[in-house]
């Protein structure tokens, strides 16, 4: 099977996932016992207000009719308004999603940067002090709860050393004196676009601690996976042949062993990226990071269904896109996967 067909097949499968999730979200909304009209009508609704809300939300329409209406809205990106705040959901997503994507992408990048080379080195120095230290560090990174690590990092780098900001996405001084014009919603990119290096540094400084907290777990896992895969591969005959040909250790490690070993680690990183989109609620709260996780968890607690549906769909799309990218990356690094 060629690379083109492989990608095409992955693409079709992804489309099925998105449609399936849309259907499941709709079904879940029907099954969960709650009265959307009562929520939409506000905190202290009268009977008339609830009736009015029922009509506005088309709750009297038949089930298939409502599903079609819902499917159409989702397909066109018209997520409607939040039952609770009546804000446009697309407006909220535009505000919260970039913050989360920025954090998730940066933390995945950190995990990649730390986890995979560390695993490779540990395998190369198997049994040495570096390997043992790395093993210990990876266990600590995986075992430590995110909220504890977050507070530890805050204590050391923000309170004690005072080198990194405690919380938030950007200093209020920047927001007051010379606010950054939002173009993409990604603070780092916006800062570069407007050549605001002060804002870039500020945004980067704010990103480090929450991203490190989120990166710890996937980095630990990626390190262990890479290490064990590398150990197996380093004993294979093509590595022996490379050694016999007199290639340098570094070249053997990164040019011949690592590409065969990173597959599982990349998968884990992809999954952890998707998890970080909505699963990082605690980290977002502790660092006052204005992200999607906080937004969605609030919606879930108040059964704000349109918000949950919209967020689920957006996260599904991100997840599917991430998986496609990963599949592609794996196919490029290791062409054997397209044959499976």
């Amino acid at each position, binding site marked *: 099977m060629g690379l083109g067909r492989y990608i095409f097949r992955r693409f079709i499968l992804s489309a099925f996932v998105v449609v399936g999730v849309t259907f499941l979200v709709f079904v879940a909304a029907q099954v969960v016992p709650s009265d959307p009209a009562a929520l939409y009508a506000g905190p202290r609704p009268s009977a008339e*207000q609830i009736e009015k809300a029922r009509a506005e939300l088309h709750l009297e329409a038949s089930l298939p009719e409502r599903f079609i209406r819902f499917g159409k809205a989702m397909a066109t990106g018209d997520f409607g308004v939040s039952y609770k705040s009546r804000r446009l959901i697309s407006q909220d997503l535009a505000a919260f999603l970039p913050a989360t994507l920025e954090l998730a992408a940066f933390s995945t990048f950190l995990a990649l940067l730390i986890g995979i080379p560390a695993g490779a*080195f540990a395998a190369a120095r198997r049994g040495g002090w570096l390997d043992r230290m790395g093993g210990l560090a990876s266990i600590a990174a995986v075992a430590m709860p995110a909220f504890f690590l977050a507070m530890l990092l805050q204590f050391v780098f923000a309170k004690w050393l005072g080198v990194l900001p405690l919380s938030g*996405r950007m200093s209020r001084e920047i927001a007051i004196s010379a606010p950054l014009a939002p173009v993409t919603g990604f603070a780092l990119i916006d800062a570069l676009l407007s050549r605001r290096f*002060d804002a870039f540094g500020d945004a980067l*400084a704010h990103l480090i601690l929450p991203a490190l907290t989120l990166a710890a777990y996937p980095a630990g896992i990626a390190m262990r996976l890479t290490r064990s895969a590398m150990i197996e591969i380093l004993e294979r005959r093509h590595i022996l042949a490379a050694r016999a040909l007199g290639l340098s250790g570094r070249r053997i490690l990164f040019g011949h062993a690592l590409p065969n070993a990173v597959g599982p680690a990349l998968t884990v990183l992809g999954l952890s990226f998707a998890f970080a989109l909505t699963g990082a609620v605690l980290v977002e709260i502790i660092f*006052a990071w204005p992200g999607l996780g906080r937004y969605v968890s609030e919606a879930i607690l108040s059964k704000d269904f349109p918000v949950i549906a919209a967020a689920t769909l957006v996260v599904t799309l991100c997840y599917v896109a991430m998986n496609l990218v990963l599949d592609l990356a794996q196919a490029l690094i290791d062409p054997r996967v397209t044959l499976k």
Partner: protein
Amino acid sequence: MNRRDLLISAGLAPLALQALSRWSVAEAQDGSRIFTLANPTGFPDLDPSTSFSNDGLVLANVYESLTRYVPGTTEAPASVAPLLAESWQATDGGKTWTFTLRKGVRFHDGTELTAEAVKGSIERTMKIGGGAAFIWSAVTAITAPDPLTVVFSLSTAQPLDLIASAGFAGWIISPAAQAQDNAWFNAGQDGGTGPFRIDSYEPGQRVIASRFADHWGGTPEGGFDTAVFEVVEDSVLAQSMIESGNADWTYSLPFDNLEAMKANPDLQVVANPSFENLFALLNTRRAPLDRPRVRQALALAFPYDDVITAGTAGLGTRSRGIVPPGIWGHDPEAPMVMTDLEAARALLAEEGLADSGLELTLTYVTSDALEALAGELWKANLETLGITLTLQPMAWEAMWDLSKADPAQAQDILLLYWWATYVTPYDYLFNLFHSEETPTFNLAYYSNPAFDRLIDEAAALSGTDRAKAEDMFKAAQRMMIEDAPAVFILDKPNVHILRSDVKGYADNPAYGHVVFVNDLSR
């Protein structure tokens, strides 16, 4: 990378961090003119017509209403003060209200405040019909006979001066902004007359507002230039911020931490009574709680002092009836039920329920620690009387659904908080105890025609003869204490923490957790 490279990198990392922190901006030039509020929640809706949540903190600094409620103190009774309206008059037995507007008031967009703008604002709010728009439900027509006079016609007599002072749905909006939709406001724009105007809004993070130079009240001596409303959900973080001076005001920190903060010379801890109270509604439609004496026995068995001590660090106060102090119509001499297990036992025996193995169910909101504690301690007391109380924590929506269904199948006891949307005793008495065909908030399912008549009459009088209305409301509260459809537990404290160099702070419980930054200086 060899071992040496590794060591060098490890050594360089802290230096790089140092450089980065220099790079990130240092304190602004004059931080003393910035007032930073660390608010434990976000601001879901900045549309002044539909806002009905924690966004009130921001809007109360940006918009103004016709009047403002001034809570009663031991020195002065509660009153309604002029704000955008300078004076007002009720005629036609409280069914017509004429407001005369303040001269020379400008909106943030430069246009002048007119009667048409007031009419348009209230009409926008009524037309959208979201949030607290119901406060205007009696309004049938608004007219603007001249640029500074607004006339409201009502279907029934209502205290419109009080209604206009509400912390929600009463904001006056500039004509240009009235034409905008919800998304426009939530993109960080405003159309108010208040002392501050919104510069920027970063959802989930902060609102920045700067002083409006053309405010009709002028700029007070030493007033702040900028108000920053930071969203800080984590109470540990909020505490760090206020202790380090990164925030000037916060609330909702755990009561256990207050002692340490009181001892900190950099901080002031301010506790005030709020207009929010906690009570237990007893199912009056289900045996044996359909009998007043059984309900009284339950009230006698409630551990009031223990709940206040353990649940609010002693800062809460015992409720005297349903209307909290500071609200006109509060009855400071109303009788207070004291915990008395022997008296409760005697009452139960008279009702033939001594050690009857009675089983009751109490529902409360899952995440509410104070309610959970109240339930546990009450349960312990009732156990000694041979009553088994089953505690049933539920999500609010599920709990409300259950209680709105058939009273015969509903819970026996429900814990609830209440506060008034606008400050009138009728809000508490009507919503909680007035007969209802289908239950909404009268979740004691209480029905007493004499009581209904009394409060309806008092409400009709409260626009024209407030003194008489007040007496009638007090009588109605005593009826509730005697008949005991509810156990009145405590009035919640409002505890706010400020930096000690902030001057001029006074909490106004009519506007829960709202700071009027214009009143403050450093």
